[in-house]
């Protein structure tokens, strides 16, 4: 058994021994803001899909170890990030997509994560197109990012508000990993 396998197994066992709660927010942009803040503070959190009973549409929740609840709520309070509710996790949550599709067009490289695609000029590293998706911030993100260099463009997670923006952030990170030095 490889070391990675052993570590993964230990991590899964550790997760089984811990109770989790989820933070529910009004909008996906609040989730993205909270995720950034909590990660910066070193909290162990995961962005997940909500359980069916609280789904409203285009939404995400933040899963956290329940024993860290007081700390997490204090960090959010200090950052003035509001949330709607906290509830314990009672059933498995949906996991965001983690598969990427990469297509090389010669001069251009396209990466797709879930339903979002980003295409970059490999030589200049300019973002030449953003496509896919169905939420209304996709045209906005495309407008803000297209024509800018990868390392100068705004992050989708900073200016987007929906799951499509979240998917574009993943695609952006993958194309940046492949194209930036």
């Amino acid at each position, binding site marked *: 058994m490889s070391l990675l396998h052993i570590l993964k197994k230990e991590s899964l066992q550790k997760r089984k021994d811990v109770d989790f709660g989820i933070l529910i927010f009004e909008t996906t942009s609040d989730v993205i803001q909270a995720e950034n803040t909590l990660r910066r503070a070193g909290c162990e959190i995961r962005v997940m*899909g909500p359980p069916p009973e609280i789904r409203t549409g285009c939404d995400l929740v933040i899963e956290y170890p329940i024993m860290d609840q007081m700390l997490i709520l204090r960090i959010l309070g200090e950052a003035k990030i509001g949330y709607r509710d906290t509830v314990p996790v009672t059933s498995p949550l949906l996991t965001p997509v983690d598969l990427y599709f990469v*297509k090389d067009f010669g*001069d251009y490289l396209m990466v797709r994560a879930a*339903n979002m695609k980003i295409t970059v000029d490999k030589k200049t590293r300019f973002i030449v*197109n953003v496509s896919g998706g169905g939420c209304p911030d996709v045209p906005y993100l495309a407008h803000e990012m297209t024509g800018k260099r990868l390392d100068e463009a705004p992050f989708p997670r900073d200016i987007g508000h929906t*799951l499509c923006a979240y998917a574009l952030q993943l695609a952006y990170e993958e194309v940046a990993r492949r194209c930036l030095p």
Partner: protein
Amino acid sequence: MLAIVGTVPDHELPIIHGPLTVDGGQVKLGDRIVEINRGTPALMAAACATQEVLTGKAPYGFLVGDIGRGSGSRHLLKYLAEHLPEFEVHILTLHYLQPIAHWHDRLLQTIEGLPCRPLLIADAGFMYAAKMSGCAEKYDLFTPDVGELAFLADESAPHPFYTRGFILHEENRVPDLVRMAYANKNAARNLLVKGESDYVVRAGQIVDTVDSPAEEAMEAMGGTGDTLTGIVSALIAAGYGITEASLLACKTNRMAGFLARPTPASNIMEIVRHIPAALRQVLGGCRSSVRVL
């Protein structure tokens, strides 16, 4: 009348509606001008370009500004839920709107209460909302790409972002994904699946595929799926049956791409301006060869 509903990335734009025209790289809706970059304006421009060839009758547009916060979408859906009966809509195409189950259901309730129910086409966010609400079967046509088809096939995914990994978005799995989407009652009566090959699906059966001409760069361009939805909407509005309109739309969109010779960095307007010539070519070439399905 064909009515097209969607959003533009300008949070200050209030609800506007009126007949649509295209002038250069802009869509005119009444006295308002909207740039054609991608999204709903691209769909509108493609529908205008198609109707210009077929009937000369302008589609009608409903637009609102929304940059993803959802408030514009909510306002527009509420407006339509209350006012749609005042418009004589025969085909309704719903597009880039925040997928909000509640407002989807409210609008659908209004539509079902109309004395003459319009033919319903959904793409992008509104298609997500239709699936999530469990109402997919009430729609006449969905226009997903292969990734979105995988989302329709996954009965537990509320958004393409959560499509489970084992439901692979692979072109050669389209027949399986179609079967799964219909088995789970998450597909419209007809599907037009956009991809390397386009699939025309009626009542769960793949009745035709189109794979040429092929311009690989179109996959990377924003708006090429939107133009296809615009073309098929306008063809249906001109009287073509859904299956035949889907087949002609696939050919026309591909032909427009072929004439434009795009690169992955091209703008969608380069495709839109070739739609009238492409449609004339497809209709001319298809008179004797198109199989009316």
